[in-house]
């Protein structure tokens, strides 16, 4: 019977090693789900749905089309967070809706919106900057806003 007791610590050790106490990490495209739609021929509305337990950094979100450079996206205020290296930073949790004005109205065209974002999980890991692309169809002049399209999973964070 003494042999039985030998298994008990083994059980405890195996329990600690075999059963992760932490939830499994989501891939970034699921942790920070991105979608977008056209509001009118010169405005895109982008939306991140940040999963529970994850957050995005406001100042690391950038949008561009073609060679436009960073578009003047209207990023809403985030939750303030003090960072010892970067100072005060703002973060987003849950859904966040961002208006992205285009350099010019291009009615009826479909364009590729490039989005960059970076976030972390509360369990204590961060994801590398995540570039994503979305094909957004712009309405004709005076047309209705288009449907939301989801970003495709990115293959690599390196450009």
């Amino acid at each position, binding site marked *: 019977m003494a042999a*039985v007791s030998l*298994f008990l610590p083994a059980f405890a*050790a195996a329990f600690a*090693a075999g059963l992760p106490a932490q939830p499994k990490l989501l891939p970034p495209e699921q942790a920070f789900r991105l979608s977008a739609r056209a509001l009118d021929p010169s405005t895109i509305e982008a939306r991140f749905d940040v999963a529970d337990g994850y957050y995005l950094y406001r100042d690391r979100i950038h949008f561009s089309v073609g060679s436009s450079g960073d578009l003047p996206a209207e990023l809403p205020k985030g939750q303030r967070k003090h960072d010892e290296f970067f100072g005060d930073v703002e973060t987003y949790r849950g859904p966040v809706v961002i208006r992205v004005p285009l350099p010019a109205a291009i009615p009826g065209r479909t364009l590729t919106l490039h989005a960059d974002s970076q976030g*972390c999980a509360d*369990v204590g*890991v961060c994801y590398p900057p995540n570039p994503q692309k979305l094909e957004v169809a712009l309405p004709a002049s005076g047309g209705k806003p288009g449907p939301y399209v989801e970003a495709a999973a990115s293959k690599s964070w390196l450009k």
Partner: protein
Amino acid sequence: MSEPLRPVMEAQPASDAPTVERRAISRRGFVIASVCIGAAALFGGFALFRSRGTRARDGAAVFATTLPDLDGKETALSQWRGKILLVNFWATWCAPCREEMPHFVAVQSRDAGKGVQFVGIAVDQADKVREFVKEIKLNYPVLIGGLGAIELSKALGNELSALPFTIVLDRSGNVVHTQLGQLKARELDTLLESLQA
């Protein structure tokens, strides 16, 4: 953090197992013990299966890697073969990474004489890295990682390329531990003690 690969030693039974007197075990106790044996066998097998991947891995991929240091000089990781080598993938944009590094600095100065060598691989821009390295008075080498570093981290099981990610190699160049998320002080000490023995 979600599923750090545990060192092999954790999956093995402790040798100083307390003994239970035969008379003390009732029939009910026997049933519980039996269940425990079954569960231990199941989970033990599971845990060993999980760690086999770590055990089988040698550090060839690590020692084949060359990356530029902060001065742009190409630096081969193979120069640290024979050390107890801790390769820490990190970035300034990763707060949990920055949080654990002062402890690495302390351990590096405490255990350098015992053959312990930390090497940081920053998945980041050199200027940011320089600034932070100066701030915490980093006392071990930092290399600037690009695609090669990401691929290395992925090859070692970090599929999401999330940070911090640390791998520990023994003196023979075997990967004995991989850690996604912070390496806690106590866990690090236990690991180093087992490798220095």
